């Protein structure tokens, strides 16, 4: 089974802190994605990557950046966390359109 592992299940950070959310997949997938999930809004795409060192903005990239130095790892970075970034963050990877696998999510609270 493909595994997508997100390093933290729950995270509490202070306003203004730099926050790193890590995601690792073990199936050599080329495509990796970061979404945030908020009640009533579904999942919204923040950033995605189709290859190492490659990144593209999704629908809501403001306040976020990403890093993909190795194929298996895709990091989401909040340069200066704000309370409106309190959310559930979901990482996914895929090889082709029917191969999306999601991680269990990181629930981030910014206080």
């Amino acid at each position, binding site marked *: 089974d493909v595994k997508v592992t997100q390093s933290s299940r729950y995270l509490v950070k202070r306003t203004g802190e730099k926050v790193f959310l890590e995601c690792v997949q073990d199936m050599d997938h080329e*495509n990796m994605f970061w979404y945030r999930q908020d009640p*009533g809004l*579904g999942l919204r*795409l923040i950033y995605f990557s189709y290859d190492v060192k490659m990144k593209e903005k*999704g629908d809501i990239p403001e306040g976020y950046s990403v890093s993909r130095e190795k194929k298996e790892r895709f990091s989401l970075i909040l340069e200066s966390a704000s309370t409106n970034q309190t959310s559930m963050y*979901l990482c996914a990877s895929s090889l*082709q*359109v029917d191969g*999306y696998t*999601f991680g269990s999510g990181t629930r981030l609270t910014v206080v």
Partner: protein
Amino acid sequence: AQSVTQLDSHVSVSEGTPVLLRCNYSSSYSPSLFWYVQHPNKGLQLLLKYTSAATLVKGINGFEAEFKKSETSFHLTKPSAHMSDAAEYFCVVSVVFGNEKLTFGTGTRLTIIP
């Protein structure tokens, strides 16, 4: 551009009765369509997908969906609801241009009444 609209944010049905979760899509090109399910405190799981083959798609746990191009709809159905079906359901659209990204609907929370 592509989008999906889930017409109901919350659906309640009695155990043993049919389930209907409604989804309309918009896409400039031939879409791929999916339904994902998320049980409480669990990750997202693929229920079924449509990728331009048969218009009636069967998925896991007795769910199925029918692609209707004339109505731009992809409604999810199940003949008889079970308590374990209580979850949040997402309709998703994708257009493939060599690589793809998924666009999610806002979700429908399904409650099963004993």
